[in-house]
Structures are given as structure tokens and as C-alpha cells.
């Protein structure tokens, strides 16, 4: 299993890998915000955490469609289906590798982008923490969408509409936790713990659903 993890990491960081495109897209989204909202620092600071979260969400959804498509096109998916290790675990490892390659960099680069939006250190720290807890959930949810994209030849187009309703709770709790850390009255812990709970919840549901869809796709 570690072999699969390391291979996927190598693949992602190699030439064609998706890691870099995720970060660049995130940078683009956040860089565009001040031009849209204007240079008013106070407004940017208030909007900061939400923008970082929306940027990270869109960036991680971007790279997900190729998660299983490449394996299917070169025939590796068939071999993976014939393994004794259950497919669910293989899918989980692939999601982990994909998150490490393209989710984690988003979290690491978010402080830099936070400065663009004139956020105080405390807000940057909180956003980073919530992103760290929330982005895995997005990858795990996206895995289901990616599995559908493999199952249906034309299914890839509608991955975002299928995944959107499931990602809304992650966004809600992520942003509310980030804001809670900044405004005194609102408690930080409850939304943050719920966010972690959602991530764990999808850690189970995501790979299981993706495995069923992939097996249906191999027919």
C-alpha cells in the first residue's frame, strides 16, 4: 500500500502532476479578489477567511477529475480491481496521496495568500488550521465524483454539480470556525470539531461509494 502512496506522490510531483496547477489556481482566485472588491484593507480583512476557503475549495475540486481517469486509461484500474487488498482501501490510499500532493500545498500556501488579504496572524492561523482539517473532506467527496466520471463517459462534466451539495457543509463549518477564532464571542471549538467529524465521516463514505462506482465502471 505504501508503494501505491509513494508512486502516486511521485507521479503527482513529476512533470504532468496536478500538484502545481492546484496552487496556481488558488493563487489566481485569491489574487483576483482585491481587484474585484477594491483595495479597502478593512473589507479585505473581513472577507479574507471566506475567500481563502472558497479558493482552496475550487482548487482542490479542480484536480480531482483525473484521480481515477488516468488509471482507467492505461489499464491499471483493472489490475487494481483484481487485488486482494479491498478496493475501498486502495481508493482511500489514492485519496490520501492526492490530498498530500495537491491538498496539503494549498494549506501551506494559504498564509502567504492571507497576507494579500491583509488578515491578522490569528485569522491566518485559524484559516490554516480549518483548511488542514477540511480539505481532506473535499478530496474524499471529490473521489466519489471522480469515480462517477470514470463510470460514465460523459459523466465528468457534471462532477461539480454532484459534489457541490455535499461540499456545502464543509465550507460552512470551515469558514465559521475560521471566523470564530477572530471574533471573541463566537466559540472556535464547536464548528472546528464538527468539521473534523465531517472529514472522518467522508473518510468512510467517500472511498466506499467510490469503490462501488469503480467496480460498476469496470463492466
Amino acid at each position: 500500500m505504501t508503494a501505491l502512496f509513494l508512486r502516486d506522490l511521485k507521479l503527482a510531483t513529476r512533470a504532468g502532476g496536478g500538484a502545481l496547477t492546484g496552487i496556481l489556481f488558488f493563487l489566481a482566485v485569491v489574487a483576483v479578489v482585491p481587484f474585484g472588491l477594491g483595495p479597502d484593507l478593512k473589507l479585505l480583512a473581513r472577507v479574507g477567511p471566506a475567500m481563502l476557503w472558497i479558493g482552496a475549495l475550487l482548487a482542490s475540486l479542480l484536480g480531482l477529475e483525473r484521480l481515477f481517469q488516468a488509471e482507467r486509461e492505461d489499464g491499471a484500474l483493472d489490475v487494481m480491481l483484481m487485488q486482494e487488498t479491498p478496493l475501498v482501501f486502495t481508493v482511500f490510499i489514492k485519496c490520501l496521496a492526492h490530498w498530500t500532493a495537491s491538498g496539503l500545498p494549498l494549506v501551506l500556501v494559504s498564509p502567504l495568500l492571507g497576507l494579500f488579504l491583509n488578515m491578522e496572524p490569528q485569522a491566518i492561523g485559524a484559516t490554516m488550521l480549518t483548511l488542514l482539517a477540511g480539505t481532506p473532506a473535499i478530496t474524499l467527496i471529490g473521489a466519489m465524483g471522480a469515480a462517477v466520471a470514470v463510470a460514465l463517459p460523459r459523466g465528468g462534466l457534471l462532477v461539480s454539480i454532484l459534489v457541490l451539495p455535499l461540499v456545502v457543509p464543509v465550507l460552512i463549518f470551515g469558514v465559521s470556525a475560521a471566523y470564530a477564532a477572530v471574533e471573541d464571542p463566537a466559540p472556535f471549538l464547536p464548528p472546528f470539531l464538527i468539521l473534523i467529524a465531517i472529514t472522518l465521516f467522508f473518510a468512510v463514505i467517500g472511498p466506499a461509494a467510490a469503490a462501488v462506482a469503480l467496480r460498476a465502471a469496470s463492466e
Partner: protein
Amino acid sequence: MPFRLRVDGLGASRGEDPIFREISLLLEAGGALLVTGRNGTGKSTFLRTLAGLYPADSGTILIEGGTDPTVPVRESLHYLGHRNAMKRDLTVAENLLFWSRFTQATDDVAEPIDATGKTVQALEAVGLGGLGGLPFGYLSAGQQRRAALARLLVAHRPVWLMDEPTAALDTASERMVEALIAGHRATGGIVIAATHQALDVPGAQMLTMAGFAVPA
């Protein structure tokens, strides 16, 4: 109990249209089966059904005398499809190293899996000895097919399912494929190959797929 592969009344269909019906065969250890037939008569689907990748709607596939009866059939099979299951960005050695570790049956972990050693041997066996360091994308179609064949050698599985093994191969490589098949059968393995060219596989059973011409 000698190692055997038994298939009884196997049938599969796509939606409502049947692809093949009532295929039964018994292959002893060291046995081989050549599947021939016109295009579109279901050769590949037959192999994918054997591999468990395509749902059969009738019949059974059993492996008798295997080490552990509870293990599902597909885990003692190697399936070589039309596509090579290799990543273009990784080098040939990296690809084979990965497949060696990934398809390593868990019970083999007792003796240390010498993945690198097996990879080198496999590359030698298919005549790609010096090319381990090259990215897979640089290889010619024939070399890529030989690298795909090497994948069957890096991890031991008793039954080989090969779909057009000699595709994109020159005559010299075809002899090499026949040698590989003979070698695998010598160690008590079973080989099922779907092919167009006449492969010299002595003592192999023949199965011609008639396809299902629906009465008009």
C-alpha cells in the same frame, strides 16, 4: 489435489444481448488454452469475465487444489489486457517495482520480497535488461508490450490471462512470449491466451468463440 481451473457453463451478456453462453472447460496444472475467433465475438469479454472484471450472468469459475480455498479466484490470476497498465512518466524499473510490491500477495511477505531483484530478472527475461532507467513513455510500442509482459513475472500468480500478448511484437519477441508461456507452464502454471496469430503452444486446448448471431 493437483492444482486445476474448472469453468462450468459460463455465460455473459451486455444488457439483453448475450455475448457467449455455456462455456465449460477444465485446465490441469501446466495446461494452456488458446482462445480464437473473429473480432467482436467476445474473446476479450470472456477473459475479463474469467478475471472477475466483467459480471457473468451464469456459470461458475473454480480453482481446485489451491493453497487457500477462501481466496477469491481473481486473486490467483494475472490479467494482461490490451492496455499495458504502465505510467508514461515513471521509468520502466519504477513501474515494475511498484507492480511487484503492489501485487505481492500478503502471505508472501514471510520471505522478504526481493522486489528489485525480481524486477531485474523480469527485465532480463523480456529482453529489456538495459532499459530499466528509461521513462516508459520513451519506449517503442513493442518494448512497451514486453515491459507489460514483464509485469506478469515480478509477482507469482498461478494463472495467466493474456489478451493479444503478441500485439505490436516482432517475430523474435513472439518466440520470447512462447518461451515465457512454456516456462510458466513448466512451473505448474496455467495460461489462457486470446490471440489472432498462430502461437506455438504445444498441447494447448483450443476454444473458438462463435459469437452470438441473433436469429433475424
